């Protein structure tokens, strides 16, 4: 039985580091204006903690202790003249300039207001960085994951992730990306970039839940955590709550998505008793927060509203397809895409019937943008079957099977073709 005295200090410090390092590094970045230097100072504080806490005990407020230790080391470094590098000189000049500058209200707003962690999120998700760089840097600096944890989550070697992080930080320095919460006209675009990164991380975990791949759901948990953190940092943004809602609702279906043989189960066929009601409640609550803001509905919120329609239906037959079809109409107007059109056609087929849906599908076929995408003939086959056009349905399923991206999908489509009367 481990008591407080024998409790592993290393475990405690690792947990404290994971909890405190994002805020610590973000605050230091604001002060020293360089992420790399901020990380170095934070690391120095961690080393000091590992040296002192075993004998002195872990402080009551470990975050504050680490911050003080990091700042002390920062001041020591700046004071040691013989160790001043150009970077530190620039920081010194920058700090002096800040004190002497004519007040620039826009810049003052950008720099001084706004939470440090929010500044870090906007910085680590900046569109100038590569997608891989953004996800790795955000998981590290905002999510508090180690490079090794990120590497295992993305199934790539650790040096690959380390490289991506190095490159991302270099881009931030080279492009002089300011450490600030954007407030001007690029705010919407910058926020969209943050949401895109978080959802990318979520999808990375969500797509790979087949079989015994239990590592990947942890990535969804990390994305959810990042989304929830952002929701508290930017509570006035409906799209943020919309994205959180979408992720909570999609995650709620995890246990029902995969069959005993590892085969994917579509939403309509899932055993709803396996849906996580805690996450559904959280998703619906996030939607309420978004609605209360009375802002025009964006893509994430609309997708969440669709997911909520499914979540509220106790059985597939209870689904309010008319409402779903209406939301797809709005979604098609806000962010039109052939995939949205395809999903809209499915909703219309359930809400109204197969004939109007087939018209939408045939437009998509004529449009050509989804050529080669197996779900298009798959949906067409289902509509034709419902209209009694069995031979045509069988042909569509054969076409879909030939376009399937993996063997399991292909086998399922061929099996469907065999089951036709």
């Amino acid at each position, binding site marked *: 039985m481990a008591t407080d005295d024998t409790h592993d200090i290393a475990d405690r410090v690792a947990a404290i580091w994971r909890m405190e390092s994002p805020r610590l590094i973000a605050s230091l970045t604001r002060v020293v204006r360089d992420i790399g230097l901020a990380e170095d100072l934070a690391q120095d504080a961690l080393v000091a903690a590992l040296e002192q806490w075993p004998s002195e005990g872990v402080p009551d407020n470990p975050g504050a202790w680490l911050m003080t230790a990091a700042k002390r080391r920062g001041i020591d470094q700046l004071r040691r003249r013989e160790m001043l590098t150009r970077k530190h000189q620039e920081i010194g000049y920058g700090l002096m300039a800040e004190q002497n500058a004519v007040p620039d209200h826009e810049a003052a707003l950008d720099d001084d207001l706004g939470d440090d962690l929010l500044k870090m999120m906007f910085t680590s998700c900046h569109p100038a960085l590569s997608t891989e760089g953004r996800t790795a840097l955000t998981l590290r600096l905002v999510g508090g994951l180690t490079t090794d944890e990120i590497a295992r989550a993305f199934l790539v070697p650790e040096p690959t992730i380390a490289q991506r992080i190095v490159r991302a930080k270099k881009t931030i320095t080279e492009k002089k990306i300011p450490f600030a919460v954007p407030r001007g006209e690029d705010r919407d675009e910058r926020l969209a970039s943050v949401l895109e990164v978080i959802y990318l991380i979520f999808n990375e975990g969500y797509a790979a839940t087949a079989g015994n791949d239990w590592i990947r759901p942890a990535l969804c948990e990390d994305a959810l955590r990042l989304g929830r953190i952002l929701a508290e940092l930017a509570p006035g943004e409906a799209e943020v709550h919309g994205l959180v809602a979408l992720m909570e609702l999609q995650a709620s279906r995890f*246990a029902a998505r995969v069959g005993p043989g590892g085969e994917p189960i579509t939403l309509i066929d899932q055993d709803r008793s396996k849906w996580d009601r805690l996450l559904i409640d959280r998703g619906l609550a996030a939607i309420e927060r978004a609605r209360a803001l009375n802002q025009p509905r964006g893509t994430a919120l609309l997708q969440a509203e669709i997911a909520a329609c499914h979540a509220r239906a106790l059985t597939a037959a209870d689904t309010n397809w008319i409402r779903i079809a209406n939301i797809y109409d709005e979604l098609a107007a806000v962010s039109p895409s052939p995939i949205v059109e395809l999903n809209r056609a499915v909703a219309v087929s359930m809400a109204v019937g197969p004939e109007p849906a087939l018209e939408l599908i045939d437009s998509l076929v004529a449009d050509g943008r989804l050529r080669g995408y197996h779900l298009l003939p798959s949906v067409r086959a289902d509509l034709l079957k419902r209209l009694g056009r069995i031979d045509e349905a069988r042909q569509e399923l054969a076409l879909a099977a030939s376009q399937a991206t993996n063997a399991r999908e292909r086998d399922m489509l061929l099996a469907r073709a065999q089951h036709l009367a």
Partner: protein
Amino acid sequence: MRFMALMVEKPREDGWTPSAGEMAAMIQFNREMDKAGVRLSAEGLQPPSKGARVSFGDGAPKITDGPFAESKEVIGGFWMIQAKSKAEAVEWFRRCPAAPGAVIEIRPVFEMADFPEDIRKAAGL
């Protein structure tokens, strides 16, 4: 990973309510967990005098209405949080503004990965 934290307290007098300061401290603690994205749910439980017990023995279960005279401990409430490790969950609840004499018991929640493969298959998972 999910953890449930149970607040285990000494029985209080009927009609007891927390002070404004105690409420504020607890609200702030919950808020910190929200800001970190780790708090999934939390509820306070009404006193045992409002509750009932279902006791199982050989025959039919026995029902007793609260309060339960022999109780030395009362579960006051619970949290469900998401954390990477038990150490992290413990670190969070060290910071809980619990009253002296209270104990918070932290338990990991069973997840599908915890069950051996044959049980998962039997459960259709």
